[in-house]
């Protein structure tokens, strides 16, 4: 014999759960703020507990590279510079000497090359070789001030931007990449310059860069402001 009260309770629970699921519920006005608060807590856990400034992502053999790597941008058409030779990376904010750097100047700075695994928030992964200059080398060149706690990266892809914690930005494998798989960075992957790091999910790596700004306040970001995790460390 089935216990009636137990069954009723179970039905009530299952009913609520399926109602929640059926609405494709992101939490609504009641729960969504709570979920975002926990997400902020998880950012803290990601940065303070999991992330290590000195731990390097494993590197792979170039023979293991992925043949076709998907490319994303938010503009309706692939963003392309009208006058590529006029492009400069603007470095500013909490720095002693703001800079305006050409690709040639960036390529003259210390060069890092690695073949690493890319992790997309969607769940796919790919192995790619990247060539670029560590963000830490650019910070050193412009004289980053001690008040700087975050870095904001802006692009010419319809206002796409990302905010980073300083520790992740200064990680030795966080680079401004001008090359991909032994070739110049193609327009599909953010030419002329994109941010790269094997310690973050793909959406944190701003493509089509125009500026890098050191800040004291936490900058938002295109996807982050819509609810995607802000720290997004892997």
């Amino acid at each position, binding site marked *: *014999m*089935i*216990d009636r009260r*137990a069954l009723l309770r*179970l039905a009530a629970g299952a009913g609520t*759960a*399926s109602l*929640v*699921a*059926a*609405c*494709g*519920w*992101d*939490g609504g006005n009641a729960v*969504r703020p*709570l*979920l*975002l608060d*926990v*997400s902020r807590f*998880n950012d803290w856990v*990601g940065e303070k507990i*999991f*992330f*290590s400034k000195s*731990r390097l*992502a*494993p590197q792979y053999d170039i023979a293991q590279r*992925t*043949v*076709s*790597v*998907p490319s994303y941008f938010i503009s309706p058409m692939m963003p392309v510079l009208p006058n590529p030779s006029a492009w400069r990376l603007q470095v500013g904010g909490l720095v002693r000497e703001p800079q305006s750097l050409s690709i040639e100047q960036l390529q003259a700075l210390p060069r890092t090359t690695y073949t690493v*695994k890319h*992790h*997309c*928030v*969607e*769940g*796919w*992964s*790919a*192995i790619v070789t990247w060539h670029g200059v560590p963000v830490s080398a650019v910070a050193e060149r412009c004289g980053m001030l001690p008040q700087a706690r975050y870095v904001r990266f802006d692009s010419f892809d319809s206002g796409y931007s990302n905010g980073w914690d300083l520790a992740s930005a200064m990680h030795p494998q966080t680079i401004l990449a001008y090359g991909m798989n032994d070739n110049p960075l193609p327009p599909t992957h953010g030419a002329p310059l994109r941010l790269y790091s*094997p*310690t973050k999910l793909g959406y944190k790596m701003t493509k089509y860069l125009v500026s890098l700004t050191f800040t004291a306040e936490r900058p938002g970001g295109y*996807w982050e402001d*819509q*609810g*995607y*995790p802000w720290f997004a*460390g*892997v």
Partner: protein
Amino acid sequence: MIASGLQIYGAYARFGERGGPYYAPNPFQDHGFPAWSRLGGWLAGALNWHFTLMWPLIVGGLLYLSYLVASGEWRSLLFRPRDIRGAIEMQKYYLRLRKDHPPQGKHNPLQKLAYSFIILMGVLSVITGFAIYKPTQLTWLTALFGGFQAARYWHFWAVWIFTGFLVVHVLLVFIVDPASLRAMISGWYRGRFPSHD
């Protein structure tokens, strides 16, 4: 947890590096799950549910395991090599190859096997989750499961096995001994099997 996981799965409904080969068997390859089974509305919503509900799961799981250890209750739950013989005898009884019910403590050896297995599956669900959550910071853990995509695969299957067990388990409760459902939640049993007390 499961419903938001199904929503997350839909964003890349296969297991393997870009361009394959893909891990098999996967009856759900290239298929999302129906809307009624998903939670979150979109990927970011599902991630926020998943990464919020993981805390009650982890904290509850750790409290439960600590209780098992501290109370000594683990002794009546953990399947050990010495239970193998008893498990065979019990199986014989269920298959009617043996007439009398073998003597047992709180749980018979087959129950111990089932409960030890399901705790292992719960632990595995959480650990494979961490392997996917921080594959770069926890490279060793992710490598233990064969890499990022393999860890995704095991995470998926661990949860299906866990869910399958749960469904069969609760169905059996209703068929065999509804009173034990109350006992599962409250901890007190007042039913027709004295040995459960």
